[in-house]
């Protein structure tokens, strides 16, 4: 039990406040701190409140060290992506990610938004937007819009689980594909706007 000096320049001493909050104060120190907190001293009350807040977060934080294998795996992605980025720049045929509701920060009330993942990719000066909706545990529905000149002249090819599905957008670019196998999906856009390949997606 600590018997540190309760006051310093008329306010609670740092050690006394901490001892009081984390339960290390001896009875006489505890009484002295409580007597001071009973006075109109908002600064000391606030300090005690903040110390308690910090101690509670620290006491509840028992997350173990991150395993080295996990860290190494994440770092490996960075190493692998540098050359790919350079290739993408050179070939200019890899669609550019613009939006992904899986990773885009959303305000807290929207965090629990359900089963639809929305994505958008830049295709040179044009873009494709679509949503992937969970159909069953193993299939997804893709629907969206290809925003290019003459969209009906284009094809959207989706390859998943060795299955290839093709959608042809209507005159306004709308398209829909049902029963797309869930999992790793490769999507390509072919047509006059040029062939574009979207990054591999997990849907």
């Amino acid at each position, binding site marked *: 039990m*600590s018997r*540190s000096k309760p006051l310093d320049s008329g306010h609670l*001493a*740092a*050690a006394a406040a*901490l*001892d009081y909050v984390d339960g290390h104060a001896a009875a006489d120190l505890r009484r002295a701190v409580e007597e001071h907190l009973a006075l109109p001293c908002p*600064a000391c009350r*606030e*300090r005690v*409140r*903040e*110390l308690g*807040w*910090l*101690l509670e*977060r*620290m*006491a*509840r*934080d*028992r*997350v173990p*060290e*991150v395993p080295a*294998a*996990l*860290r190494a*795996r*994440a*770092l*490996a*992605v*960075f190493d692998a*992506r540098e050359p790919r980025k350079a290739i993408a720049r050179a070939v200019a045929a890899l669609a550019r*990610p613009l939006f*992904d509701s*899986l*990773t*885009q*920060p*959303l305000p*807290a009330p929207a*965090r*629990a938004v*359900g*089963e639809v993942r929305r994505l958008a990719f830049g295709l040179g000066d044009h873009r494709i937007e679509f949503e992937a909706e969970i159909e*069953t*545990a*193993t299939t997804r529905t893709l629907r969206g819009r290809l925003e290019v000149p003459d969209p009906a002249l284009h094809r959207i090819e989706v390859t998943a689980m060795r299955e290839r599905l093709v959608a042809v957008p209507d005159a306004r670019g709308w398209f829909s594909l049902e029963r797309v196998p*869930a*999992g790793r999906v490769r999507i390509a856009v072919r047509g006059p706007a040029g062939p574009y390949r979207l990054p591999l997606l*997990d849907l």
Partner: protein
Amino acid sequence: MRRYERLVYAVARTYRLPDADLGDVFQEVFAALYRGLPALRDPRALCRWLSSTSDRIARAAARRARAAPTASLDEPGVADRLPADLPSIGSDLETLEEQAMVRIALASLPERCRLLLGALYYEDPPASYAALARRFGVPIGSLGPTRARCFEALRRAYQVLSADAGISASGSPTFQTRERARERRARAAAGPAQPT
């Protein structure tokens, strides 16, 4: 990455994923961060983005993992029995973000303070003063005052971090404001007050 990895890990492991899936989540979150999707400058915003992104990705992985063993649709009604969704860990995310922010504030302190507070408040069970005096090669009587000084430095560092994030105009209301916000959310979650 070192600074924030524990937060990603903390969120992802709440879904009790197998190691391989946990690795996928970890990789995907940092890959998303690397792609530069968020223009996040301050630690608070980055913590929020990382926790939210980790939650979303880990939840998706958990859903896939649950679905996988019964994924065959040959069996009638299988799809209907699969869980439609897993709830987000929701308000726990905020606690994990706050814990990450405290660790970031701690990391900004001098090494001696970092080690001392780490040993006292993060080791389980906490190290005894006698063991710490031996570990740091200092008189046991000096540990109490050093602990108080270090904790005061941590409190100020946390205030600076929160103020940088624009949470509060002044330092001290930061804690209070967030406590009140938490209370408001708890009341909202409990539903409307019952008439007496």
